[in-house]
């Protein structure tokens, strides 16, 4: 398949790429840009560990062709921290034990970010709804819910 030149906006940087039209956003992020924090778990949108943000919304990057991301702002887990200063969600996930094997964590954290952007004070039910597309086999989800709640509190404190 012939390659085409596209420009993706990833983590605030314009990236020029030569990409076959059938390649997914997951593949291009992981293989071409070496942003391997975006995980590949199933390739068909079941597990959510390839979740990235597209214009702030959580999307399964395995269900998007890289071409479909042209003209949108993509944020991967690598783009969340500000240098060495982690995002409050990352801090809360670390502090409250919301991470075990860590394979779902990037997607889980990015889905949480999208959730809190739309709803800064979610109830437990809303947190669960917001993360219902991300599978975790290790934690039983409880500490993830607690971490999102904790981060929401911190972020409100920071913005007020």
């Amino acid at each position, binding site marked *: 398949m012939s390659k085409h030149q596209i420009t993706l906006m990833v983590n605030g940087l314009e990236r020029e790429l030569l990409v076959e039209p059938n390649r997914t956003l997951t593949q291009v992020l992981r293989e071409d840009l070496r942003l*391997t924090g975006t995980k590949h778990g199933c390739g068909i949108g079941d597990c959510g560990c390839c979740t990235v943000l597209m214009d702030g919304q959580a999307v399964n990057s395995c269900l998007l062709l890289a071409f479909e991301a042209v003209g949108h702002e993509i944020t991967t887990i690598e783009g969340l921290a500000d240098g060495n200063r982690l995002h409050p969600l990352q801090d809360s996930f670390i*502090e409250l034990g919301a991470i075990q094997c860590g394979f779902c964590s990037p997607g889980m954290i990015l889905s949480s970010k999208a959730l809190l952007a739309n709803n800064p004070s979610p109830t437990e039910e809303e947190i669960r709804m917001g993360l219902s597309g991300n599978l975790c086999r290790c934690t*039983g989800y409880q500490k993830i819910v607690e971490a999102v709640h904790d981060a929401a509190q911190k972020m409100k404190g920071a913005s007020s």
Partner: protein
Amino acid sequence: MSKQFDVIGKRFPRKDAPAKATGQAQFVDDMVFPDMLWGAILQSPHAHARVLNVDTSKAQALPGVKAVITAKDVPGTKYGVSPARYDETVFAIDKVRYVGDEIAAVAAVDLETALEAVSLIEVEYEPLPALLTPQEALAEGAPWIHDEFPGNIGGEVHQEFGDVEKALAQCDIIRTDTFQSKRQDGGAIEPHAAIAVYDLDGRLTLHSATQVPHYVQRTLAMVTGLPISKVRVIKPYVGGGFGPKSEATPLDLCSSFLAMATGRPVKMLYTREQVFLHGRARHGYFHEMTLGVKKDGTLLALKNRCVMDGGAYSSFGIATVYYAGSLLGAPYKLPNMKYDGVRVYTNKPACGAQRGHGGVHARALFEQQLDLIAEELGMDPVELRLKNIMETGDVTCNDLAMSSLGMKECIEAVRDGSSWKNKRGKLPPGKGIGMASGFFVSGAGYPIYRSETYHSTVNLKVQEDGGGVEVLTAAAEIGQGAETMVATITAEALGVNYNDVHVQSGSTDFGVDLGAYSSRTTLMTGHAAKLAAEDAKQQILAELAAELEIDVSRLDIKRGEVIISGEPVDITPIRTMYIKEHRGWNNMPEGDNLTFREASRLAFLRKGSITGSGAYKPPPLGGKFKGAAVGTSPAYGCSAQVVEVTVDMETGQVFVDKVTDAHDCGQAINLTQVEGQMEGSVSMGLGEGLFEQVKFDAEGRVENPSLGDYRIPTIMDIPNIQSLVIESGEPNGPFGAKEVGEGGIMPTIPALLNAVRNAVGVQVSELPLIPENMLLGIQALKKK
């Protein structure tokens, strides 16, 4: 607890969490090597067939293909998990035994080319009758899946402790029940993966998503014929294991042979579908149990018959068929127990070990029977259990010694924590509350191969510039927190701060560690870490004592400072020396006490590098009967859970409202991580109870090989779990610690089933709890 710890039992963040929260943590699929090739495997489309011919010529001719290997190109050495049942070869020789059995492998310049090459390999099959259930495989005249195993019986166990028939004759209530569970999948979010690198020194390095680098290393050496000194296995971060990653996979073996054939690194990944084809997860079990009690509720005798659907190869199954019997000996006093188990070969992917290995579904039936008997006796299920409970010091009829057992405390904790007394019998129709208990080994007492080997070694180096500690362990961090546990125990034993300990793990170069299975890491690796830290500490203190010209018994290290007992000692010369060595530096040591930084620097200056080493193996354990080794452990964790449910009477759907869980882990090394294991165990147990089931079509193909069709719990399915940590103080564990990772799943399914029966009166004899079956059960009861 009376013991005061500085680091243990707190809630320090995991060592690996920052890397995992930022995307920096590397898993196998995240790694690339210069000049790397991609591999792919040709797998059988038939469940059972003779392989008449394999023609690879078209694949070989495809541009970009660098190697094609079949059974002709690799040794036919048989391997497997247990030497007692080595029944696998790298590629099928003459015959395939399940849909997915390996026939050939290809290495090519990219994955697309490798997959295209695989599609060009032509195989001539002669289909054979596929045996898809134990009934078919055990039937008179059924073909043998393996010539060496007549009648398709891969493992058979017959054990009796006490005299069951005599005891049953003395019982007032005897009941017999049956239970059928379905095959399940581990559901680790990371699929299996491997990258093999064969260097010009003739050394093979395999990077594998495995729970057991040590066993993979041995299997690779045995099958490739390379000296074990030339085989290194490195486990990067692993995205969950739960059992199905605890043996050498076809990816491990094929990538190694392809790397050796091409001289280039070879990467191989399973798709999610292939994870299901590989299997190695929980067996489907049929149990029939006869339980006898006296009218005062005293348990007297249990007869347990089990038939396990094993799949095409043994994997861990020879141990599983023992565990399905031996793990009922506790936590209740049960003087007479008879077990007859058989593991049957079928033409499906092999089953193996999964969290709670062998014990989960045996307990699912047994704990239901306890509730049914309590009902017949008019006793509260909690009271029946407490009446028969084992305590610390008790030994089971099959010689398992409970060196610590906070079982009673666990039951009382969930009873009180769930307000059991206010709820049981007082809930509206459709709502129910149920409980169950369980126990599990804290590490298998013996390695899988017969050996006097140490089970864990740990080596640590105190940094020469003072103040830090580098720990090397071959233990497998698979998400359960092995590195964090090792760091915590090291810090406590050495007397330094958690942040001053750095752990490297998962490489066979770092030592021997049997891996992450049988809930063994905290007790066994933890022991070795403690010994290594104490070794280093003694060396440092000996040098310090000599320098200060005082007796070493007056010295200790705590919280990063040197504690000197007795008369005051002048530490000024040591401090002055340290400060002189660091002219121009900031942050010089201060205060009345010498710091660990100064002490460890001094020790280096006097002695050279300070390295500590520790090695652990359990003492000889268990009885003398055949199979006595399986189920033995230096310690046993135990737990109790109360599950509360709502059953929709119109649809049959079961909703879990709340779980109250208590687990005796001996001593929490890290409280947050103990809770995490408890919550993860409950989640997995609820998934298996409520909806998990690997399904097959009539040709032996997996019908639901995806995480959409094979449903594991989402965040919407799992309720809040109240985790209560019980600490009984295990004398055989490091700082009193024992397991939590696997034992935590034991009570979940039976507590769920007991709650369902409490809600709607339906006794569940088949998993999973699909709404159709529930509804049929509810309707059948209404008709009565």
